[in-house]
């Protein structure tokens, strides 16, 4: 969740982490409250010699509030979580900021194929660069990706970006990310895709803008080829 467990390397990673933190605090309070009450009651009302239990049905109004008031507060907590969760969801999955570059991610048994534009920065032209299992992107650049699958369902997951999306055969799913840290990170396939699922690992290389243009220039197929 926090930076201390896994670093954040995309523009929305912090939003998702904050949501997780908010939920942790809210449910954490409830959790310790209920467990505390539970163990307190167990200790307080342990059987003692010659002492009968009390006859409490829970039907009286002043007793019912012990259930009804927490009920209301749980509902309020739920509403808070819903508002923040939908807000994060909207920003990450439902809205699509303008792209500075567009790539295609192709899942197949059992490799990732990455297709990205060459010097013209336009996808599906002659100078596109294809790589397998290694994706090179430029830092602080907003990318759109078109996610497709050639066979079964895969899932493109980059934990440091907090990015995850299933790849469905027969569909092209568009999403976005914006790296905020240079470095090399894991890409995992997160959906069972057959015998090679465990080796369907990729690496994403986030480069500075200068490094990335050098990489594009060095790897572009020769013009006119």
């Amino acid at each position: 969740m926090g930076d201390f467990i896994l670093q954040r390397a995309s523009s929305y990673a912090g939003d998702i982490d904050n949501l997780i933190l908010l939920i942790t605090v809210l449910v954490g309070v409830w959790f310790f409250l209920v467990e505390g009450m539970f163990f307190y009651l167990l200790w307080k009302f342990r059987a003692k010699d010659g002492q009968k239990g009390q006859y409490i049905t829970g039907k009286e109004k002043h007793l019912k509030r012990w259930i009804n008031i927490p009920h209301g507060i749980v509902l309020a907590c739920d509403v808070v979580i819903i508002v923040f969760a939908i807000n994060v969801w909207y920003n990450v999955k439902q809205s699509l900021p303008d792209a500075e570059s567009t790539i295609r991610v192709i899942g197949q048994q059992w490799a990732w194929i990455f297709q990205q534009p060459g010097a013209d920065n336009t996808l599906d032209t002659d100078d596109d660069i294809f790589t397998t299992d290694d994706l090179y992107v430029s830092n602080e650049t907003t990318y759109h990706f078109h996610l497709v699958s050639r066979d079964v369902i895969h899932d493109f997951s980059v934990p440091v970006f907090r990015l995850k999306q299933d790849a469905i055969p027969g569909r092209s799913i568009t999403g976005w990310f914006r790296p905020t840290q240079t470095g090399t990170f894991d890409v995992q396939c997160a959906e069972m895709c057959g015998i090679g699922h465990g080796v369907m690992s990729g690496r994403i290389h986030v480069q500075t803008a200068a490094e990335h243009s050098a990489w594009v220039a060095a790897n572009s197929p020769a013009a006119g080829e």
Partner: protein
Amino acid sequence: MSHAVTADSHGHAHDAHDHGPQGILKYIWSTDHKIIAMQYMFTGMIMALIGGFMAYVFRMQLAFPGQSVPGFGVVSPGEYNSLVTNHGSIMIFWVAMPVLIAAFGNYLIPLMTGADDMVFPRINRLSYQIFLISAILIIASLFVSGGGFGGAWTAYPPLSSMSEYSLTKLGSSMWLLAVALEFVAFLLGGINFIVTLMNARAPGMKAYDIPIVCWMIVIASILFMLSVGPLIAGAVMLLFDQMIGTGFFDPTRGGDPVLWQHLFWFFGHPEVYVVLLPAIGIVIEIIATFARKQLFGYKIILYTAIVTGILSFFVWAHHQFIAGIDPRMANVFTVTTLLISVPIAEMMFVTVATLYGGSIRFTTPMLWALAFVAEFLIGGVTGIFLGASGSDIYLHDTYFVLAHFHYTFFPIAIIGTFAGFTYWFPKMFGKMMNETLGKIHFWGTIISFNFIFIPLFFLGIGGQHRRIYNYENFPDLIAGQPLRVVATVAMLAMLAFQVVFFINLFSSLKSGKKAGNNPWKANTLEWTTTSPPPHGNWPQDEMPKVYRGPYEYSHPDRDEDYWPQNLPS
């Protein structure tokens, strides 16, 4: 009215018994609900041992990748996938379902409602026989050429539908057939539970006099019957895709793979409550008995169970937030999913509130029941992270999910079962279990359970995905190896502690203290007959009548702190 029906069917049942099979056949070919319950119980236990062995093999592979696992050998990726797939399938369909619904439902519903047997005893027998065939089929599927099915227990097509992708042509089909047969078995059993509870109750037992556990099992059966239809339809479509080349889930021929996910989870989420409700029922019976307390709000529990059941039909797509559904749909399902936390939280509050003012005895069954509450809470609150769409983007399909649902399913299927089994053991076999061994088994299991799954929460938060047979392929995940070893060692400890249970089980069966009719001084009807109860449950002229609710403990007007349902005053 219901009395007449009971007395009548009772006469028939006795006839069948007198001319029925004798000797060993009596146990195999019986229509007695108690024997069928034991058949389900012990089949479930054997399947749990098989599922546990699978967990042992793949956890060893995760802690010590590539090394030979004692008792199995080196685990290949295909075998690994098959092990995790069948571990999940077996633990849910062949352990949780048969034990919690079929075994406890069969044993308890007639005994607790004062009936002499199920209303349809032969359908009941058929239910178990079909279940047994399905269990044999799922085990057999592991040994056919190509190996067992390895496409996860959710069986998403096209991986599950096309053998060129899964490479387990026979295994996939046998897995699917086994699951479908298992559903048939539980549909037959479910009909029985519902009809018996509705029609065959003892005279005087009104709706609110029914013990909660019977309500829970019947509500669960109704949920199962309403939700399983779409999945059976889906299973037939998937079987056609596999066997005769239709393309329901094949996008190249106009099909849609995501359709299966909807059909599967429309069943799959209510299924969680199908096993949860009986477990909560068992726990509530035990807590009321050993706290010597009237339940805090009988009706609240009943109604929250019904509300949970209804809501559970509107949450299924929270399993599919990032599975390619329209992103706008995620908002709807986030709302419904978080709302379902309200009735479940309320049920937990009521259970905790029941302890207030009690006189709590910490017997082994009570410890299990209390542990259910304490551990299930962890499973409950971690569900919020996954039901909220925004955080699910990151946590989906990680070990966080895995740890979350083991904190729900382990309390349900293992803790709940041990609670019920140790509580009703004196009734089932007429002997008491050893309390010291019981407590050693309890603490060993509970402590090691937490050491298995708490590390997995952290691995999940650290971005480790599920169903990967060797994390050495992922540089960012290598640092988590010590946590994987901790989980595996804890699992070995937990398996070792189960030996204590079996020693206790067999030594108590052989030489346990005699139980008597009502060793726990409980109120419900099953404690009014002998232990174990005779065929027909009560002598024909002593069928019980009911005068009050099941939880009249510590009543101020009585010297004794319990007041059985069948006492006239």
